[in-house]
């Protein structure tokens, strides 16, 4: 028999929601938790916790750092949404990493090879990135529905293949050229018409926020609307909750698996775009890697919720940015990685605790209403 209560996995992936103020309590609790644990780690390694956190906060709130943080967060957000699309359907797309790297490489090459009027050029690059990401992810989707291969396994393999394929493509005989003034190689730089100008919106600094931060917002809104307002989103969530019930309700689960992988991959394709179109203009050997894995952590942190993910991405980015100051104070910047890991764990624990609290609190409320003579809404079976 299936237990009438929600499972741990449901609570973990945010399929069961907290209500009211409690939905704020959980993340706050998590941050306090993580703060405590990090303090202990700092103490053990001989650094004063409060001072260290103070230094990080100080540095992290400088205008320049804020710009940096927003830029990181933009990328992280896209990555986490890509992961979350799969999560909502119980699909573990571990392959976001390979999808975005391959997408960025091909999109950069295409963008560098053509010259088009500005809006068209940008649109073309984004489109190519999404198509490549979607195409690469769809392989895992098809393998799952046609051959029953677990997407976890296939996407891990596809990551490795993407790395090899990327190395093969990024060769002077194929897509790469020498980057001027270094021994690095990369794709041909994207001309002016394909670039997205940054925005100097943070007062007190010349540094610019990626123009494509808007893209992240659009993707976030799109994700929310698609999942909770559309039929398609309903089918996707239903499949995630109970595949057998979804089948009986008329959902074509195989089609859903492939579609969800394609959507996840298309979102993954966008991950590299803010960086590519806003700052590096070329995919070279030093293009950031590993963002797909960060996305998994942030999706968990934000519980697959579009706003939750935004907070998770900002927090993660803040920690990343402020870590660079630690070295100056002779504190190991690895402490930040520990913090990030701790936060993810704390979030999982905190949500579990708050969920349990919510249940007992409700029960106490019911009994109080009973004692006070006001009947609860339904009492056992009311006639």
């Amino acid at each position, binding site marked *: *028999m*299936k*237990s*009438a*209560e*929600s*499972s741990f996995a*449901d609570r973990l992936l945010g*399929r*069961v929601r907290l209500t009211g103020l409690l939905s704020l309590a959980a993340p706050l609790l998590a941050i306090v938790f993580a703060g405590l644990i990090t303090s202990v780690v700092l103490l053990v390694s001989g650094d004063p916790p409060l001072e260290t956190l103070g230094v990080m906060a100080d540095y992290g709130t400088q205008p320049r750092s804020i710009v940096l943080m927003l830029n990181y967060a933009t990328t992280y957000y896209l990555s986490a949404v890509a992961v979350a699309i799969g999560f909502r359907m119980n699909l573990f797309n571990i392959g976001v990493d390979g999808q975005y790297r391959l997408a960025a490489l091909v999109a950069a090459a295409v963008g560098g090879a053509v010259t088009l009027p500005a809006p068209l050029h940008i649109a073309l690059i984004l489109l190519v990135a999404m198509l490549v990401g979607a195409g690469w992810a769809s392989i895992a989707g098809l393998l799952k529905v046609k051959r029953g291969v677990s997407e976890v396994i296939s996407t891990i393999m596809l990551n490795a293949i993407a790395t090899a394929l990327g190395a093969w493509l990024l060769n002077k005989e194929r897509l790469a050229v020498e980057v001027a003034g270094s021994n690095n190689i990369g794709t041909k730089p994207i001309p002016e018409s394909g670039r997205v100008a940054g925005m100097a919106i943070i007062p007190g600094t010349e540094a610019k926020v990626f123009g494509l931060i808007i893209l992240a917002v659009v993707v976030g809104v799109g994700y929310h609307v698609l999942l*909770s*307002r*559309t*039929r*398609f*989103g*309903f*089918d996707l*969530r*239903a499949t995630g*909750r*109970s595949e*057998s*019930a979804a*089948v*009986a*309700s*008329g*959902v*074509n689960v195989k089609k859903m698996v492939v579609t969800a992988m394609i959507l996840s991959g298309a979102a993954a394709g966008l991950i590299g775009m803010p960086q590519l179109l806003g700052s590096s203009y070329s995919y070279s050997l030093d293009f950031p890697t590993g963002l797909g894995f960060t996305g998994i952590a942030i999706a968990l942190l934000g519980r697959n919720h579009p706003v939750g993910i935004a907070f998770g991405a900002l927090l993660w980015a803040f920690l990343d940015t402020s870590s660079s100051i630690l070295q100056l104070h002779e504190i190991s910047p690895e402490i930040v990685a520990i913090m990030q890991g701790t936060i993810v764990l704390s979030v999982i624990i905190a949500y579990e605790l708050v969920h349990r609290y919510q*249940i007992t609190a*409700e*029960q106490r409320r*019911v*009994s109080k209403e*009973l004692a006070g003579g006001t009947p*609860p*809404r*339904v*009492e*056992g*079976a*009311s*006639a």
Partner: protein
Amino acid sequence: MEEAVISTSTPAVELAGITKRFPGVVANRDIALAVEQGHVHAIVGENGAGKSTLMKILYGMQRPDEGEIRVNGAAVAFRSPSDAISAGIGMVHQHFMLADNLTVLENVVLGSEPRKGGIAIDFGAARKKIKQISDTYSLGVDPDALVEDLGVGARQRVEILKVLYRGARILILDEPTAVLVPHEVDELFGNLRELVREGLTIIFISHKLDEVLSVADAITVIRRGTTVASVDPKAVTARQLAELMVGSELPSPETRESTVTDVVALSVRNLSVHSPDERCIVDGVTFDIRKGEVLGIAGVEGNGQAELVEAIMGMRPAEGEIRLGEEDISAWSTLRRREAGVGYIPEDRHRHGLLLEAPLWENRILGHQTRRPNVKGPWIDRAGARADTRRIVEQYDVRTPGIDVDAAALSGGNQQKLIVGREMSGDPVFLIASHPTRGVDVGAQAAIWDHLRAARAAGLAVLLISADLDELIGLSDTLKVILRGRIVADVDPQNVTPEQLGSAMTGAGEAA
């Protein structure tokens, strides 16, 4: 209780002042219950009265907010089912939890391997012990049979054996007869008497009051979460019992005047379903259902009914032809069939009927996600779906604190009412009703029958599958018997008794 004066032994189970609250609901309030050693003790009460919750508390699956549990006179506080098992309490849930592709032996031993003596499980000893238990209580269980080859009755005996294997002396059975046809019920009751004779104590829940009266030594009635009466089965009638439970009379499924028309709504020709290993599960089934007609299919569970239904729903590949009205729908997807007006009350509501972790109003959308009032074009119409959920809750008397609670929080019978209400919405032309009143109380059963009759009078064609023979005989205009995947007999529902139907279902009437 009078008997307590005569009997000097301590009760096997005593529950005192048990209270359990869920968000918005008091499931159990100040429960008092004493179960004598060696008794078959029945617990009855309407849907949502709190029976399952009370049993889960006794079995350690849930913890009471208040109250005391005494087993054989000693106070206990279970933190998990394993605590309850070590105190000699075992529970068989309504939905079996056996692994299909394992043998009886493996299923029984699973999770209870002797911990001492290294890694290897001593299958030889286990087999001997199973045989011995099976013989002692005449369960007739073969340890080496594959579970997927067993019928429901046999599976249930395996579940009981599994509990006995773990040393249970007190057995809880939650609605054990809901899935059984009459002769299986008789067999089960025979087993229960055997167990009781050996000194075991049995607590069982049922909505079928005749059965309760025939087998129980004592009956406790629960209403709105609390025990309202303990009665002697020899001193009450089913009618009185129903009145104690719900304050209403026993319903009858009788359909009076026929509403059958000449227009064929669903026609099935030579439908066959094969299992992955090429066994024929449904074998050339042919029938027509006309508008305003209820076609009943009688059969012991596991004779192809589930596969037949899934084939008609397009959830399972099949050969043969299915026509809905004029159209051949054999190649249509499940969605298209549903959109064309096929309603579906599945036999397993948890697997096929609900999203347990979603609120009621989202469950209203399930299976109807392309139709009003749930959607407008590609968009979910929240307001529409919510309003219609409220209507269903009201019309079908779904007892719930609101439409935002998760389906998992409803009692089994109330989940069923929600599904029936949903599938009757949107004017279906053809309804598959698999055990439409399984697990609902007598009052709700009458209400569901009324809804079915009204829809039938308005032209609905119904394929009715049920283990409840009174329901089948009373509601059906035409009745067919299925055995090993084939339609083996046509029966006239006007002139058949449940006994005759029962023997036709086991093949006894095959020759006739």
